[in-house]
């Protein structure tokens, strides 16, 4: 087992340049045929933000948010990381059927490269947060250094789910539609336009514990505390997010490793 992990790690490391090329290929192809290019990745969260801010300040006012627009934006950006990466990763093995059938390389790098290239787009959205932080004159503190850590936890979760979905999609082609529905559910089950403390107050304890199994919950809350309230992440909810993300990542690698033996026969 340990031996296998070491071998896989070495194999992926040997193909790190291929991974970089796959990421760049994904980027080039995506933007070569678009006139607005990278602008789209900033436009989408801005539109979402506009709608949510209008609805929840005028029609249905919310309590508990500090710097409401930024608070919502942090939620949108975190959720978007999932919404950008998972559908793209799901198709990554099937869409590269000729490669999978004929070229020998660790297949893991297919979903991983897609997740990484999409998360670069996610990073530009994080840049949008920075702009808003400056506009609203949110005090910038040392705790901002925790942002990459929280983002890293989210990324572990996304890579894990990406590996799982791309492998399942080979044997079960309806995966794409399942992913679409699951993402809609995830949007409402994540504290995007509401906050985690409100969920904590309104849910019975067992339901709240269940709710925390979605790592977006702990991560979005942690981001808000760090960026807007100059506080450290809430230890219980953030640790659940870390553990769930890690378990998902490990499960993703394990399941992908098992199913990839059949990839060449099935794609």
């Amino acid at each position, binding site marked *: 087992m340990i031996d296998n992990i070491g071998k896989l790690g070495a194999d992926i490391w040997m193909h790190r340049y291929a991974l970089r090329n796959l990421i760049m*290929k994904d980027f080039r*192809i995506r933007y070569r045929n678009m006139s607005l290019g990278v602008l789209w990745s900033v436009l989408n969260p801005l539109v979402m933000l506009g709608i949510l801010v209008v609805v929840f300040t005028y029609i249905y006012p919310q309590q508990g948010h500090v710097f409401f627009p930024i608070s919502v934006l942090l939620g949108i950006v975190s959720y978007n990381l999932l919404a950008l990466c998972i559908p793209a990763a799901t198709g990554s093995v099937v869409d590269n059927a000729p490669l999978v*059938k004929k*070229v020998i390389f660790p297949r893991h790098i297919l979903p991983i490269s897609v997740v990484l290239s999409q998360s670069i787009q996610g990073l530009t959205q994080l840049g949008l947060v920075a702009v808003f932080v400056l506009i609203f004159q949110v005090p910038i503190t040392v705790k901002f250094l925790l942002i990459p850590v929280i983002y890293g936890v989210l990324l572990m979760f996304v890579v894990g789910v990406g590996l799982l979905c791309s492998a399942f999609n080979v*044997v079960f082609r309806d995966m794409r539609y399942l992913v679409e529905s699951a993402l809609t559910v995830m949007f409402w089950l994540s504290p995007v336009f509401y906050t985690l403390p409100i969920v904590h107050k309104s849910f019975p304890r067992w339901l709240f514990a269940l709710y925390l199994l979605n790592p977006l919950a702990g991560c979005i809350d942690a981001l808000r505390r760090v960026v807007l309230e100059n506080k450290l992440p809430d230890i219980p909810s953030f640790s659940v997010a870390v553990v769930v993300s890690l378990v998902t990542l490990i499960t993703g690698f394990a399941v992908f490793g098992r199913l990839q033996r059949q990839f*060449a026969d099935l794609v």
Partner: protein
Amino acid sequence: MTSVTGNAPPAAIVLDQVGKCYRLRKHKTFLMHELLARVRGIPIAHDEFWALRDVSFSIAAGESLAFVGKNGAGKSTLLGLIAGTVYPTLGTVRVSGRIGALLELGSGFHPDLTGRENIYMNASLLGLRKNEVDARFDRIVEFSELQEFIDVPLRNYSSGMAMRLGFSVAIHTDPDIMLMDEVFAVGDQEFQQKCLARVAEFKAQGKTMIFVSHGLEVLRGVCERAIWLEHGKVLADGPLEDVLAQYSSHAH
């Protein structure tokens, strides 16, 4: 280690009682009723097709060998197993050394990327690092004779041009073992001669080479051993001329 192993060259490839079974379904993937059947514990009926059955042989490092047989005899499955893209249902496959597979030329190419970008993409998938591709880039382009088109997207290449580029990338990755599936159908006569010259060079360097080809004449120049496959079984394994004689007398 005993001294017995001292003289014989190390085996590059060993297949031990290998079987490969494909499940033939009407649809390639899991269907809803199949899922339901599995949940209820009802066994699912498949048509099984054994592409290979009980295949055992070993190939020494430096040997040049050909798989012959009709379409559907299992030759390409066998190459896939050795390359590691296909996993055996039964038995074991052991391979030592870096494999440069020419299972299908240019299979990693993307139509939207230029020739240059595709060279880097393809070579890196075959396991090369950036500086290694940089060092080989000029030779790859020169061999493919595509200098003028190297910054043109692949979609504008003819199929022959794309295959030439694929062949050129694959032979420059410096493999220990070369697997070639009908690659001599590439390009015009002149380019074929060039490929054959390169194959002879590899042979002189002591690389292990496995060919699948229907052009029996081509094989005569490069292989000393052949394995004849029929319906997934090995019918003959021995010196090329003997096996080819058996194969052609059977065919007529």
